């Protein structure tokens, strides 16, 4: 089955032909542009060695940064984009602070009954966005209203069990253990950053937490030795992963090698959202350099996404951005970012 055959039927809104003659020319041009880009993207997705019976879906996680960084909007629209290229996609709402993925997809919120806050509220809900290959998976009641970790874990499992090609996770801005473990397990973990100090600082805090969890969580020997060493370091001499590896070198060379390999294999993706200036778009590359130098992390730059009122407009109408404003700067940036992400992940899949 070719990519084109697999493409989903366009949603009604896109198929609706304009009636007024004076608008027709413009609309046709826009449709042409969009088709070009779609074809280009289709051919790119075609290069990725998807197997006919995927054993495991490609898992993309959006995390980190701070509230309002745009994770949900990006997760929803990247999901929509990949689904329009014929891939079966599920986006999962795993934000412990209670995200609003449904709003960005134009689906209804779940209004909890008082009873559902007290009882076990039942299984996760999976809902398909009509006319697409995209489903939303979410816990059966809004998060942030109780002991949510089991509900989030169930929703994660349900999303992975859907036999989709792609699973996109909206993890929220927190760095709790479940979020970190989920982030680390994803094929591509994206940290969404805003070009402002608070978001940058929060993003580094998230990356540090994720890195040290990767290095030291668990009962395997390297983790245990590393934890013991850090616990003994009361003056804070072991400030960076390189310090830790150096110190381990002396007492336990195998643990040092294992920890070094874990640092090197941690490849978070950095995305700068709501860029207003040229320099904002270059910030991702700068952050990649900086975390490389300071933490030894091989991060990857996903580039910038423009600040665009289209996001605000689309969200206010509770309509998916890519359907509401297909040719917007933001829409194009989202497509570009998705393309870069697929290229990065695709290259990996090819080799792995």
């Amino acid at each position, binding site marked *: 089955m070719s990519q084109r055959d697999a493409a989903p039927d366009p949603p009604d809104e896109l198929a609706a032909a304009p009636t007024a003659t004076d608008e027709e020319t413009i609309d046709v041009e826009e449709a042409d542009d969009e088709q070009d880009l779609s074809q280009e993207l289709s051919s790119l997705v075609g290069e990725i060695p998807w197997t006919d019976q995927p054993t495991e879906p490609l898992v993309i996680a959006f995390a980190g940064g701070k509230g309002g960084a745009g994770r949900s909007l990006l997760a929803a629209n990247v999901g929509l984009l990949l689904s329009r290229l014929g891939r079966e996609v599920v986006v999962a709402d795993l934000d412990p602070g209670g995200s609003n993925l449904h709003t960005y997809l134009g689906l209804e919120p779940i209004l909890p009954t008082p009873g559902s806050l007290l009882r076990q509220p039942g299984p996760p809900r999976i809902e398909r966005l009509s006319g697409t290959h995209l489903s939303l998976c979410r816990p059966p009641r809004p998060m942030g209203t109780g002991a949510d970790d089991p509900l989030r874990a169930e929703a994660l499992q349900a999303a992975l069990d859907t036999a989709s090609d792609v699973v996109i996770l909206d993890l929220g801005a927190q760095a709790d253990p479940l979020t970190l473990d989920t982030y680390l397990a994803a094929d591509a973990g994206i940290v969404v950053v805003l070009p402002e100090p608070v978001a*940058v600082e929060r*993003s580094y805090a998230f990356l540090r937490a994720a890195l040290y969890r990767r290095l030291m969580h668990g009962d395997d020997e390297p983790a245990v030795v590393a934890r013991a060493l850090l616990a003994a370091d009361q003056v804070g001499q072991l400030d960076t992963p390189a310090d830790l590896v150096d110190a381990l070198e002396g007492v336990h060379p195998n643990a040092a090698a294992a920890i*070094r*390999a*874990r640092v090197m294999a941690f490849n978070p993706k950095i995305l700068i959202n709501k860029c207003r200036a040229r320099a904002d778009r270059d910030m991702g590359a700068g952050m990649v350099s*900086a975390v490389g130098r300071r933490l030894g*992390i091989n991060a990857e730059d996903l580039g910038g996404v423009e600040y665009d009122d289209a996001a605000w407009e689309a969200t206010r109408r509770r309509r998916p951005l890519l359907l509401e404003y297909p040719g917007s700067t933001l829409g194009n940036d989202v497509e570009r970012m998705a393309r870069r992400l697929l290229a990065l992940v695709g290259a990996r899949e090819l*080799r*792995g």
Partner: protein
Amino acid sequence: MHHRDDDANLYGVLEVDPGATEDEIRRAYKRLSTLFDPNSMVVYGLYRLAEAQRLGERLRLAYETLVDPEKRRGYDRQLYPQGHPSLRRADQRVASVPPTPRPDAPADPIAALGLAEDTPLTGEVLAKVRQVCHVTLEEIADRTKIPMFTLRCIEGDQFADLPAPVYLKGFLKQIAGMLNLSPDQLVADYMGAYSAWEIESARNKRWG
């Protein structure tokens, strides 16, 4: 990973090759001094203020030494008493000869080994190619100045012990030159396996 050893010499501090041109050094300093300026947003929450200031000082010192030809020569003599490892500097270009295969090496070592043309060039294949080209590891180390340990790790596919990809690629190209292999193909194949290992180790450690 970036290691403190990477900062052990001034080239490492500026993240440039020891053969970098003056222009490359200027550009590297401009980029890094802007990036790691204590007021830069990019270091906020990553470096303590005093650390960012110290890093700024180190960058400045490295730049001032390397951008001045006189000081750089003095520094190179101190750093490389055996001679500069780079082939790129104009004043050394005449003196140094790029690594070449032995005259009795087969023109197509892959075919000589009876392997398929598209056999991926892993460490194991590389060791066989080296033998069929009648070259010892010591000879490669001598000609290229690549440490013996690194050469052994390359042939043993001991990825965890290899240097940063940027150096590794340079080493591979030099090795290819001595073994009648296509440098581009060796880099593509070997770095492919290297990345696969990175992913593999990431996957194995997926859940912490």
